């Protein structure tokens, strides 16, 4: 157990360094981007004088390094700062958006992970049967269509032609949970379709990968049913790669859903980030990127810890 704690600490400190480097990269990338907040907000209506005045007001006329350093010092003290564009406190702005993002990510994950595991196990169990093939083809098709397209098709069938679900995921905090779940069901299904295939294929592949191992043969020699062989003997030993892929996909659910947010008009963090990039609202971009990067790092860490926990060899040393 101590070694896990040690690893966690080591990885967390590495994560902090990673975050620092990420913030540097993002900052410089936004700096290199043509135009700045003043130009982007004023857009076509900008004149050199108004831009200069705007820049001065925002402190954008100071050198980049001093701006970065002051951002960093505030950041270390836990102060995310304020949006350059409209002065809103970033912590408020982000906490809303991020909780929305997490909500729909969790929603999709709760559907997708068990579904992927079940399908993967069934596909491994009935490998090369018609079930395997159909599951394979349908899930593959679902990732070969662009996300927005999957979303449109779902909307067409479940919303336009039959009004089962709303096409806008327009939620607010005041709604009861059931209402929120109802309104976000289409984005959740879309995301499920997007991530389920990768997890399912990995489940199937890594189970099949251990099917040739002697302990699986042993289980069959003990007269265990095929289902029990797969669930109790193959699966526990195939978990590590599956966990890793699940983590990657969960990270995607949190980080990579901009398109789905746009299509369902769901106010998540992704859309905020894209918006802020286009407006060069650097403080918001920084904060949102760090949250995403942090999520990614944490999920990977959790996956690694779980992989260790799933492996008695590492959990119970000799």
């Amino acid at each position, binding site marked *: 157990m101590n070694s896990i704690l040690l690893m966690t600490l080591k990885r967390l400190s590495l994560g902090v360094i990673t975050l620092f480097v990420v913030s540097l990269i993002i900052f410089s990338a936004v700096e290199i981007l043509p135009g700045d907040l003043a130009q982007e907000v004023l857009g076509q209506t900008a004149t050199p004088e108004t831009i200069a005045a705007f820049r001065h007001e925002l402190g954008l006329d100071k050198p980049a390094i001093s701006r970065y350093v002051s951002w960093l010092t505030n950041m270390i003290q836990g102060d995310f700062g304020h949006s350059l564009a409209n002065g809103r406190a970033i912590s408020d702005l982000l906490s809303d958006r991020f909780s929305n993002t997490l909500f729909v990510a969790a929603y999709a994950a709760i559907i997708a992970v068990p579904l992927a595991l079940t399908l993967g196990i069934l596909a491994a169990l009935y490998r090369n049967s018609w079930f395997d093939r159909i599951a394979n083809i349908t899930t593959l098709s679902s990732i070969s269509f662009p996300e927005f397209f999957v979303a449109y098709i779902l909307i067409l069938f479940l919303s336009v032609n039959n009004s089962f679900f709303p096409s806008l995921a327009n939620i607010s905090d005041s709604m009861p949970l059931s209402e929120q779940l109802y309104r976000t069901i289409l984005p959740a299904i879309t995301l499920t379709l997007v991530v389920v295939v990768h997890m399912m294929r990995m489940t199937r592949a890594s189970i099949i990968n251990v099917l040739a191992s002697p302990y699986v*043969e042993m289980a069959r020699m003990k*007269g*265990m*049913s095929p289902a029990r062989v797969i669930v*109790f003997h193959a699966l526990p*030993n195939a978990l590590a790669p599956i966990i890793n892929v699940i983590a990657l996909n969960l990270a995607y659910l949190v980080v990579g859903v901009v398109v789905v947010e746009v299509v369902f008009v769901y106010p998540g963090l992704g859309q905020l980030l894209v918006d802020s990039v286009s407006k060069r609202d650097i403080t918001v971009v920084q904060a949102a990127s760090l949250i995403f990067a942090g999520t990614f790092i944490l999920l990977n860490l959790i996956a690694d810890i779980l992989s260790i926990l799933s492996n*008695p060899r590492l959990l119970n040393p*000799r």
Partner: protein
Amino acid sequence: MTICEENLTSETVKQDTQADSLLTIRGLKISALLDSGWGEIVHGVDLDLKAGEILGLIGESGAGKSSIGLAAMGFARNGCKLTEGEIKFDGIDLMQASEKQKQSLRGARIAYVAQSAAASFNPASSLIKQYCEAPIKHGLMSSESAEKEAIELYKKLNLPTPDLIGFRYPHQISGGQLQRAMTAMAMSCKPDLIIFDEPTTALDVTTQIEVLSAIRDIVREYKTAAIYITHDLAVVAQMADRIQVLKDGNTVEIADTKTMLSAPKEDYTKSLWAVRNINREAKQQSVEDDYILQLKNISASYGNGTQNVLHNININVKRGQTLAVVGESGSGKSTTARVLTGLLAAGEGEILFNNKALPLNYKKRDKETLRHVQMIYQMADTALNPKQTIGQIIGRPLDFYLGLKGEKKQARIKALLAQVDLDPDKYISRLPGELSGGQKQRVSIARALAAEPEFIICDEVTSALDQVVSEGILNLLDRLQKSLNITYLFITHDLSTVKAIADEVVVMLQGKVVEQEKTDVLFAPPYHEYTKKLLSSVPQMDPNWLDNLLKQRQQERNQS
């Protein structure tokens, strides 16, 4: 001819013993999916087993003994299928039985003990859980009573701390203990038949004895019938009532153990017996202190000095001779080889090669030194790049060390292949995967020879091979040594190999050298205490050897 006769006899046996016959196999044919498609690997084998009887199935790899053993459970591995014949277990036709029916037999009435217990236990669950799985799922016992019985069996099998050991995970206990735990698991449902598939092959000689005796006792106590599959005659001699010899998917000979050992009928059987006795001409003794290699006060450790594995080792190797390093697994003999090559840099000490100190790390050695000290690995499978042809594998050192190119290189490759008794034109463009284990090991030798070295380290080069094949390899090495005056450092756990090839022997235990002695001196009394234990553990052909040995050890224990 003989096979027909055998068939006739077993036919009559069957009629005699209809009442207590547990398993009959008739005309069994098994096909396997080979690279070229389906091919028959077992060509109509018969087998009979009475209740409570132990049958030894013996043969070299490829004889089909494992496939037949599994067929006794109505089971065919991935890529195999039972094509023809009849398998009757207690009146149930396993060829016709449904999967469900077979499932209900397996584990409950027919059990299986696999070669490698370490690989065959599910690493993700505790021993006792796996023990209880079969009795519970077959509806024979509650989990409490299964657990109670497990502990009982663990006790009978002489496992340490039987109350607790079951709650440990497979990786936490040693190989010998695991093999006994697996036997216990096979016994969990008190089956009528257990199939032992080379259960001690992967074990050291000293642990092998414990496992053998444990298996034998328990089988006898429960009067369980067993099929004992092995390639080791001495082992089967201790276990079986009757022996069936197989070769290339056919039965060669069936007889009861005593008859088979004393009067084998078939030439093939005789040849198997003969392998056990290698005799080698004694070499001329070289000049007393012409040492080609000396290890002085070597200590080494893994993992940044946390695990000390070698303690102050001193070994001297004379030019043109063979020095064998023997010991059980974990004794540090392979580490010694790695330190010598510099792949593991020794923490302390000195390596002298031709009286010159070598850098401890191979990266600091020059090409010429590297060329002169070559290494042959235990597993030819992993030592040869599966994606390179034999020609490429052997050609690389020629090119790399000696700068040979084009025609000259090809000619040298062919010469080397001929030197290791492989047909050059046939093998030069093949991939390692298309070769048998012995052939691969020959390629490894050719690769080492290609560098024209003075010194070759042989790390357990024969331990993965059948006896007949390894005999061939040993003879080859011996011949090469004589013609090329190469010095060998021979690492092995097999004392018969040592006897066959070594001029001098180093015995190692727990990272220390126990003794270094000339071979004939070592194998003659008086023995060093540990050496004696090692020597006595080597199975002998005598069917009573195990009983005698155990008796003897018991007495010694009582005395002390």
